[in-house]
């Protein structure tokens, strides 16, 4: 029981050092479902997929102590997302070669190790990941927009409905629909860049 607060404090402290306490929560919110979806698409049973999620999250949370807050090496978020991907791709590659059950050190090594070969797994995972990060970001920014603005974006950009019809339905000019959908998309992209650590988080 004694290690609970320690883990918690060290993690919080590290995140604080990185000046970014939301990073971990946001990371987990995006990464866990992505890993799960990937595992299921690879044919893993629900329970095994959950195990994999846990394994990845635990390894990554433990690895946070080893993060070097050197600005030259990129942001904490970028590092977090990179090592998680490394781990997952390497883990998947190992699964393919021999059954699971290797030691902790193996997992730790996979964190920093670049995947040996970028195969079908990495492509599959990247798609799952993109799916998650997009839906996550869409949820995150939705409340920032007026209902009509959001609807204009969703119906035209996501559902691919004709602009003119959507404009009539929403009582907007077509020009306003163009502006609305672009504005939402720009914000969406900006939010994804921020969560992945490519741009500093000015907002939120």
């Amino acid at each position, binding site marked *: *029981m*004694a*290690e*609970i*607060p*320690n*883990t*918690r*404090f*060290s*993690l*919080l402290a590290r995140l*604080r050092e990185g000046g970014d*306490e*939301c990073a*971990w*929560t*946001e990371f*987990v*919110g995006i990464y*866990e*479902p992505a890993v799960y979806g990937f595992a299921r698409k690879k044919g893993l049973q*629900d*329970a095994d997929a*959950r195990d994999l*999620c*846990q394994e990845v*999250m*635990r390894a990554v*949370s433990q690895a946070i102590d080893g993060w070097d807050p050197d600005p030259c090496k990129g942001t904490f978020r970028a590092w977090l997302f990179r090592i998680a991907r490394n781990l997952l791709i390497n883990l998947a590659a190992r699964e393919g070669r021999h059954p699971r059950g290797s030691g902790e050190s193996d997992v730790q090594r996979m964190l920093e190790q670049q995947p040996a070969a970028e195969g079908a797994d990495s492509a599959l995972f990247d798609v799952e990941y*993109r*799916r998650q990060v*997009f*839906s*996550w970001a*869409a*949820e*995150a920014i*939705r*409340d920032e927009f007026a*209902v009509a603005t959001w*609807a204009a974006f*969703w119906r035209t*950009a*996501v*559902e*691919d409905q004709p602009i003119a019809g959507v404009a009539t339905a929403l009582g907007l*000019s*077509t*020009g306003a629909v*163009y*502006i609305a*959908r*672009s*504005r939402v*998309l*720009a914000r*969406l*992209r900006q939010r994804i860049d921020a969560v992945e650590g490519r741009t500093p988080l000015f907002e*939120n």
Partner: protein
Amino acid sequence: MVVRFTRCDRRRLKEVLQGGATDRAESELAGHLEECEHCRRDLEMMAGGPEVWGDVRSFLSSVDIPPGPPGPVHSETTTTRDSLTSSEQAAPGAVWRRQLGFLTPSEVPDSLGRLGAYEITDVIGRGGMGIVLKAFDPALNRHVAIKVLAAEWAHNATARRRFAREAKAAAAVVHDHVVPIHYVDAAGEVPYLVMACISGHSLQERLDQSGPLELKEILRIGMQAAAGLAAAHAQGLVHRDIKPANILLENSVERVRITDFGLARAVDDVSQTQSGVLAGTPQYMSPEQAAGYAVDHRTDLFSLGSVLYAMCTGRSPFRAETAVAVLRRICDGRPHPIRDINPEIPDWLAEIIGKLHEKNPADRFQTASEVADLLEQHLAHLQQPQSVPRPGKLRGRSFLRSLTRSRKWIGVGAAALVIAVIVFSAVINDRKPAKENQERQADDGQASNSVNEPPVPDSGSRSQTPDTTRAATSRSEVDRDLLDSQLQELRRDVLQMELPRRRRESPVSATPAAVLEMDRQLRSLESELKSTAR
């Protein structure tokens, strides 16, 4: 063409895209975009480029985020926005909907699906432990709230066990000021518990809307919350997450109902063990909780103090920009004095809150019922000042401290007195008895001789006198040695009694005059004893 080029302005496109343009500029651009395909393309490229537009289409079309209004996450029962973690706040709808897969389809209109016998009608919110659903119970024809253990925990044996244990314990608490739990299903694929659907709002919402409350309201809500806590504590249940969001005010009657007993944190514990992430707001935690120590029912009393503080001032007592800083303040800091923020709060209430906020659980009130009684008495006095007397002044820490300190001094004084008496009697015994001794010795000289020395034939009484005197002296020497050692022992005791006090308190703390005086007398007696003995 000329017209188009004068109106095409990339800078303005960018401004509008970032929402920084005026309404007029925006509607002008909207009009322009309807004619100018070139600017439309530019705008879309600036927004994202074709791959992003493609991603949006392929990745978001499989996600169910309704294009309509986001739908207020209004909580009638339990979890409000306050209790959501940042990630949950950021991404509610889609995550919940994805997680509703466990519901069995239902033909009832407006039903999202069925869980057991209940028709799920709405998603109310999400807390650390899972989803909160609004449901209809057809058998009893009433609305209920259902807490479902989140899918990510439903497969975790530890989380399930804790959920079951806490839910059953919570169901055993039946009290006016606790949200009743109707049913617990902890064995199914998705563990859940069914509780009364309370219509009303949380204390958090009330504080957000109206800021600090009236004194009578503070006392009424505080008293009822304390009474609810007392009922739970009597069952051995610790809430561990007392905060305004978990204190519901039932509509019209505004009856206080505590909800979420032990549940949120039960799962949080598991979550923290695994991911090291602290879920929920730590603002109302107790120091022992914040430091990760074992907690008992007194953790709820600290949190109750924070809730009272929030009602008095409109804000939580330990605030900081980051979670870590909040935890640190809870452990080390003192909240800003209540009366500085709201001078209308009487001293005695600030004192009650101060006592609930003692860092050491042993220094707080020891039971919730004690607090409930005290608040009730104050409320009664406030309402009927003529017939109900104001409760006595709180025996705060300073008073207790001074009491324990004076007890210590009583001990020191007593020890010194004992020494004084012993020394004094020894001196008396030692000084005067020379003659008496001789007389006594003379009286029972024979007997003493027969005891102390072998009878010497032919020896007269005169020859015996020096011997008996020597015997008396040697006995007083023994006594003095004994006294001396006793004296030293007592001095050591006195010193030991003083030491811990000195170590704890400031090194320059003054020693009371009475003790100094006693010490002085002790020393003089001591030296007198020594000189007499010589």
